[in-house]
């Protein structure tokens, strides 16, 4: 790594942190929009004024909003995002319980999605305009235009109800062997993979097509290089940055999918925790989950940016 690259990476890091800071302010403001008082809402109409005042002080509601924002931000950074308004359990512990499940779902989905999406994206870009490209393209437009719960419901209908190959629920408590786990996770992962492959492969295709239509690829073709050589040697090294970016950006769509899929399959992950917290209006839990998801997404985008900088051949010798 040289000085120019180092400077770019540092700049990206600062921009990423700035974005995260703005996002935290947005999340905090959005949850502060509630007219009226959380303390009154929590204690109900029969609460005594002293009880309300006590809870207000405990929740720092008697402090100005900017101070509460700083307190909250400090808590997040220190790993203590507060206490649930509904069941009085620490938010950190509740998130800690669900995190392994979500990571398991995410990693299995990534292992399935990324290779398939890249293969589809690269091959459709190589043979763009062919019948193969058009058919895959139509399928992908179909998948990305359709709600995730339709894909999930159709999967349940076909594989669990009609064919009886798979169980309809994703979670079973107690110990289970590897095969049982795979069977249980097949439909959630399959649904997410379809959604992810749709987004990722079309972004990959778009990134690669831009490179394939540039003049140095034209030059390579005129010199007589074969299509495989053109893609692997000439186009891919230059398209690596945009492709990695495409993969990171599609996780934004995947997150929406995770929220729907964890709900429909009753999977005890972070997204389900957040949806439940929204319906009970447990604000500290919602805020912490939202920040965790945003931070994870921004971290992925940041990593992709850094990889793109490192992979950019034009920055290598300076």
């Amino acid at each position: 790594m040289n000085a120019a690259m180092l400077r770019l990476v540092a700049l990206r890091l600062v921009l990423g942190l700035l974005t995260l800071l703005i996002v935290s302010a947005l999340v905090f403001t959005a949850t502060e929009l509630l007219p009226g008082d959380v303390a009154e809402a929590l204690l109900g109409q029969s609460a005594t004024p002293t009880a309300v005042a006590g809870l207000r002080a405990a929740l720092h509601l008697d402090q100005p909003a900017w101070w509460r924002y700083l307190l909250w931000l400090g808590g997040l950074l220190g790993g203590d995002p507060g206490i649930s308004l509904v069941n009085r359990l620490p938010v950190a512990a509740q998130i800690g319980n669900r995190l392994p499940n979500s990571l398991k779902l995410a990693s299995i989905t990534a292992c399935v999605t990324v290779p398939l999406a890249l293969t589809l994206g690269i091959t459709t870009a190589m043979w763009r305009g062919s019948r193969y490209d058009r058919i895959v393209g139509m399928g992908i437009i179909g998948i990305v235009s359709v709600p995730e719960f339709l894909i999930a419901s159709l999967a349940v209908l076909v594989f669990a109800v009609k064919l009886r190959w798979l169980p309809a629920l994703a979670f079973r408590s107690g110990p289970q062997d590897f095969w049982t786990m795979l069977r249980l996770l097949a439909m959630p992962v399959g649904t997410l993979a379809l959604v992810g492959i749709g987004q990722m492969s079309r972004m990959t295709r778009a990134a690669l097509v831009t490179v394939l239509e540039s003049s140095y690829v034209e030059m390579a073709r005129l010199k007589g290089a074969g299509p495989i050589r053109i893609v692997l040697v000439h186009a891919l090294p230059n398209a690596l940055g945009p492709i990695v970016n495409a993969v990171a950006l599609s996780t934004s769509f995947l997150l929406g999918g995770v929220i729907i899929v964890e709900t429909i399959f009753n999977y005890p992950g972070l997204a389900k925790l957040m949806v439940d917290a929204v319906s009970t209006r447990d604000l500290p839990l919602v805020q912490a989950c939202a920040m965790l998801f945003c931070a994870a997404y921004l971290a992925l985008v940041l990593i992709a940016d850094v990889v793109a900088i490192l992979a950019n051949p034009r920055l290598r010798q300076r």
Partner: protein
Amino acid sequence: MRRLSPIGMVALAVVLAWALAALFAPLIAPYPPGRIVTRDSLADLSVAFPLGTDYLGRDMLSRVLYGARYTLGIALLSTALACLMGVTLGLTAAARGGWFDMTVSRVLDAMISVPSLLAALVVVSSLGSSIPVLIAAAAVIYTPGAYRLSRAVAVNINAMDFVAVARARGEGTLYLIRAEILPNMILPVLTDFGLRFVFVVLLLTGMSFLGLGIQPPNADWGTLVRENVEGLSFGAPAVIMPALAIATLTIAVNALIDSVAGGRVTDGR
């Protein structure tokens, strides 16, 4: 604008059909949507109930037709608001530049990095779920995308010769935007409107599916899927039909844009 391809014609027909269904639901629906018409709940397709019945024994066809009013109406209003705010901000940023452009761009870029369903959940957790809140949330969530597009297009047009000529004539900023820039933005903005409409439909039906969107007795297509979801374990059409209704609408809008704008739709949100 070119002639529509055969696929484009079909897509246009589907979109128009849903628009008419939403407008004239009271005239075409065989039953009132809230009335329990049979004891046979979550029933299969039949002549009397072409789309089956729901978990209470209400006619699904009538419920889907009335649901179109919520899904199409609310999504149309949110998309229009998002595009209005996005285009206004984008034009102002492109015309004024400087600190205004930088601040707005930075903040809206940060908003884009919050996944849309997540943002909607955060808003609903504090304000509760009502139709005005949902419309406002969807409009704000999709403003940054409309802003990005219109700003980029406006910056391009702004650099063209005919704008420079008008500026040299001594025309003011408002005139430049209205007479020179805006007319040249209509096709890209309309295309973007269609794309954003699909995202809004998916977002709002997704929220309703989670039980955090349109609340019963009002029911959009997402609510219809949710309230019948227990029928999924034996394959009741009441779950699949409203979901298919969403799919036909969104696929048709995307295919229509594809055929009007030409080429593949590549950009994300």
